[in-house]
Structure formats: structure tokens, C-alpha cells
């Protein structure tokens, strides 16, 4: 009896230790200096402030009680400076459970991308900085299906450019050549622009949820939102449904991996895509959803 009791206690102890590990270790020495990779940007890049000041002036709406001019009298205004430095690098910071290293270059971190003619499959070990964001989280592939205007399999042909959208967020644009159309009116072999919130950097992407951004030579299954011409200033581009939830990476063996599996905060998983799946299984699953959705529509 005592033996059983001791055994049970030991088991509880073990389980408790495991469950306790999810609370992240706190390092109170958060670093605030020695930043590298500083880029000087124009004063307009402080737009959140400038723009809202303008808006307030134009509309005279809900911030009538706010006196924006008086604040400059006693406290230096960061927006009045001629240069504002911006960085997204944490190169000098020792991060728990991270493989961040400023000396590593792209080839060290992305060895998978080296082979010509093969698909670039991102590594989970890639050093990545996470942007904190709140979103409408899809709980299943079916939900992603209904939230998407277009669903395509495509090859990323170019890391086109970076955009600082209205000085609010950085966007990365990628060119994608469509290999297969699953939903929507896009055509095979058509090339489209995909935009994603974040920044592609040599030493690791900065992205929502810390998931890899699209890179040249990737093959991906994408659930796309309605196109917009606002992000690229007149040129059409597509966003991904559910931020990274609507993105699935192919490996060289034709298996698909949900980008949500890469999220550094242990994001919720899609209920019907809990593990990597072969392409044919995924496509037949989407086909089933398509048929079910048609039946519901009727």
C-alpha cells in the first residue's frame, strides 16, 4: 500500500515538473542598449503620431480634449527629432531557448536553401523574432477554406521587396508562381504578389508568431484573402488568411507542414491538421470540404 502511495506521489511530482515548464523563465536583465543594425529613417516614419495629429486637426473628432502642442514645452518630443533610428535586431541579447547569433549568416541558419532545384523547406531552428499580434484564429482547415477567396499551391520565385506600410508595419512582398489552383479564379502559371507582415533578415525573420516568412524556392499551399492594391500602392497583392495559419510549407518529399507548427508561443493547432500530411491527403481533405461547402450552399 505504501509502495503504491509513494509511486503515485512520484508520478504526481513528475507530472507537476512537466506542467511547470511551460511558464517561461524570466530574465529580468532585459537589455536596452548595444543595438546593432540601426537604420536611420526619415522623420515621417513616426507616422502613428504625426498622422493622428493630422487626423485630429482635420476631423476635430474624438480627441478634442487632447492638447498635442503643449506637450512639447517641457518634454523633448521624439517626433520632432530629425532622425529616428529603428531596428528590429536583438543581436546582443542572450535569449532563452533561442539560437540567435549575430555572427551567423543566412547560409548557416538556412542550410536547406542551398541545394539548387530543390524546395527550400524552412528550419524550426531558424532564429526568429516574434511580433505580438491578435487575430481571428481559424480552428480548422474548413474554417480557413471559408475565410479564403483563393487557395493555391505556388512556388516562391522571388523575395521581391520590403515595404514600410504607412510607417506602421513592415511588409515583405514575395512573387509566387501558381502551380495548382484549388479555389478561386486565379490561373495556373500566373504570377502573383503575396504580402506578409514582418521583415526578412539574414539572421532570422521578424514575423507574427515567429513563423518563417515566405522565401525564394519555397513551395507552399496558401489560403489567400481578397486581393488589395493598397499595400503595394496600386499593384495587386494577396494577404494570407489567418496570418500564418493559412500557410503550409512543402518539404522535398511532398509533405505539408502547417506554419502554425513553427509558432514560438505554441499556437493552437488546426483541429483537422494536427500533424504533417502528404499532399494528396491534404488536397483530398480540401476537396471534401469543398464538396461539403457546395452541398451546404445548395
Amino acid at each position, binding site marked *: 500500500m*505504501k509502495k503504491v502511495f*509513494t509511486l503515485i506521489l512520484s508520478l*504526481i*511530482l513528475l507530472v*507537476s*515538473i512537466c*506542467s*511547470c515548464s511551460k511558464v*517561461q523563465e*524570466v530574465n*529580468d536583465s*532585459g*537589455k*536596452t542598449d548595444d543595438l546593432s543594425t540601426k537604420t536611420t529613417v526619415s522623420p515621417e516614419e513616426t507616422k*502613428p*503620431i504625426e498622422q*493622428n*495629429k493630422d487626423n*485630429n486637426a482635420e476631423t476635430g*473628432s*474624438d*480627441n478634442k*480634449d*487632447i492638447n*498635442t502642442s*503643449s*506637450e512639447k514645452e517641457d*518634454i523633448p*518630443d*521624439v*517626433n520632432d*527629432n530629425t532622425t*529616428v*533610428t529603428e531596428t*528590429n535586431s*536583438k543581436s546582443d*541579447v542572450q535569449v532563452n531557448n533561442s539560437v540567435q547569433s549575430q555572427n551567423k549568416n543566412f547560409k548557416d541558419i538556412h542550410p536547406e536553401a542551398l541545394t539548387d532545384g530543390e524546395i527550400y523547406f524552412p528550419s524550426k531552428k531558424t532564429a526568429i523574432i516574434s*511580433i*505580438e*499580434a*491578435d*487575430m*481571428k*484564429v481559424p*480552428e480548422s482547415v474548413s474554417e480557413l477554406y471559408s475565410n479564403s477567396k483563393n487557395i493555391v499551391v505556388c512556388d516562391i520565385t522571388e523575395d521581391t521587396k520590403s515595404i514600410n*506600410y504607412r510607417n*506602421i*508595419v513592415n511588409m515583405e512582398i514575395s512573387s509566387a508562381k501558381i502551380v495548382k489552383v484549388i479555389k478561386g479564379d486565379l490561373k495556373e502559371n500566373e504570377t502573383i504578389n503575396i*504580402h506578409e507582415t514582418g521583415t526578412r533578415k539574414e539572421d532570422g525573420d521578424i514575423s*507574427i508568431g515567429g513563423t518563417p516568412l515566405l522565401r525564394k524556392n519555397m513551395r507552399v499551399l496558401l489560403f489567400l*484573402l481578397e486581393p488589395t492594391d*493598397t*499595400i503595394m500602392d496600386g499593384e495587386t497583392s494577396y*494577404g494570407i488568411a489567418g*496570418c500564418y495559419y*493559412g500557410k503550409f510549407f512543402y518539404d522535398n518529399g511532398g509533405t505539408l507542414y502547417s506554419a502554425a507548427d513553427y509558432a514560438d*508561443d*505554441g*499556437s*493552437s493547432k488546426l483541429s483537422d491538421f494536427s500533424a504533417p500530411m502528404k499532399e494528396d491527403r491534404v488536397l483530398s481533405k480540401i476537396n471534401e470540404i469543398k464538396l461539403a461547402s457546395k452541398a451546404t450552399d445548395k
Partner: protein
Amino acid sequence: MKTQFKHFRRIFTVTAALLTAAIVINSAGAYVLQIGKLKKGVVNQTFYVGLDNQTLSAQCVQAFTDWNYAVQNTPETRNMGFNFERSSRITGSTIRCWAENVPGVDWYGLTRFYILDSNWNATEVDHYYHRDYVDCILNLYYYDWTYTMPTQLQWKSIAAHEIGHALGLLHTNDDGDRGKLMYQGFNVRTATSATRDEVMGIYEKYC
């Protein structure tokens, strides 16, 4: 020998029980802390709301009021001095809320951290750094006056969630945490203001 073994087993059992109790109590918190926090702390701080949209603006202010209420009415944190008051000044405010129209991105709220150098130049950093001030951005593109989605309450939830990031909390994403404010996904979480769990996270962070 047998008596000694029995004695040792008794000590082991008691130690195991005590350890178990301690660990269970400690691990009850689901909150996940960032490495960095607000340099100025959370005592008598100010926030600025620079939103033209009156409804969203009201939700932001309410989100701060809820945070104050939650921390000030929890026994462990009652005496922390936690307080965020609305300010009419942009500079000097620790947390600033904005709204911007960003189409085709599928995020509704975003948090950005900044540090200031000796010349008051702002540098954006990630959540690993202690920060001087934080911008919480709501995506106005998804604002719908009919409130089909997000609802008014969900906008407040988004604002409160971003404030949680600003204060130093990360997402909690276990399925059992859907009742927590820091659970990612305003459409799936049930909390619209800070729960005891988040409050205890703030306590651990700043006390």
C-alpha cells in the same frame, strides 16, 4: 536495516508531497512572461489614446480602466500602486493606442516596443528588451459599425490583450487557457479583460 529503510521511505514520501504541493501551486499560473518590461514600471503611469474613431477610443479607455480595476482589486496586487491614467500628452505616456487601416493582413491588434536614447531618438525593439514606451495598434480595416465581427466587446478584448503585451505578457496558448485574456484569437477566447492569471503575471513581473 529494515527500520532504517522504512524511515528513509517516510522522509522521501513527505518530501515528495511537499515538493508536489509547492510545484502545483507555482505552476497554477498559465501566464507567460516576456523578457522585457516597462522601464518606468506600472506605478502611476499614463496612457495616450490617439484614435479618431470614438467607439474604438472608448473601448481602449475601458480596457485600461479594466486593467486598473483588476490589479487594484486583487489581494496580492492591491498595494502595488498599479495605475494607468489617460493623458493628453503623447510624449511621456508609457502606452499609446493608435488605429490604422491595414487591409489584407488578418491581424486586428499589434504591439510595438520602443526605447529612447539620450537624445530622445526612438528605436524599435522586440519584446526581449525593457522598453520606454509601447504602441498598441488596432487595425481599423476590420472596424465595422454593425459590429458583426469583431463585436464592441471583442474590440475591448483586443485592446486589453495588446495592453497585456505592452505590460510584459506573452500569449498563453494551451486549449485550457481560452478563458485567459492573453490567449491568442479574440474570436476564441472568452475573457475580455485581465483575469487573475494575467494579474499574477504582472505581480511577478513588477514586484
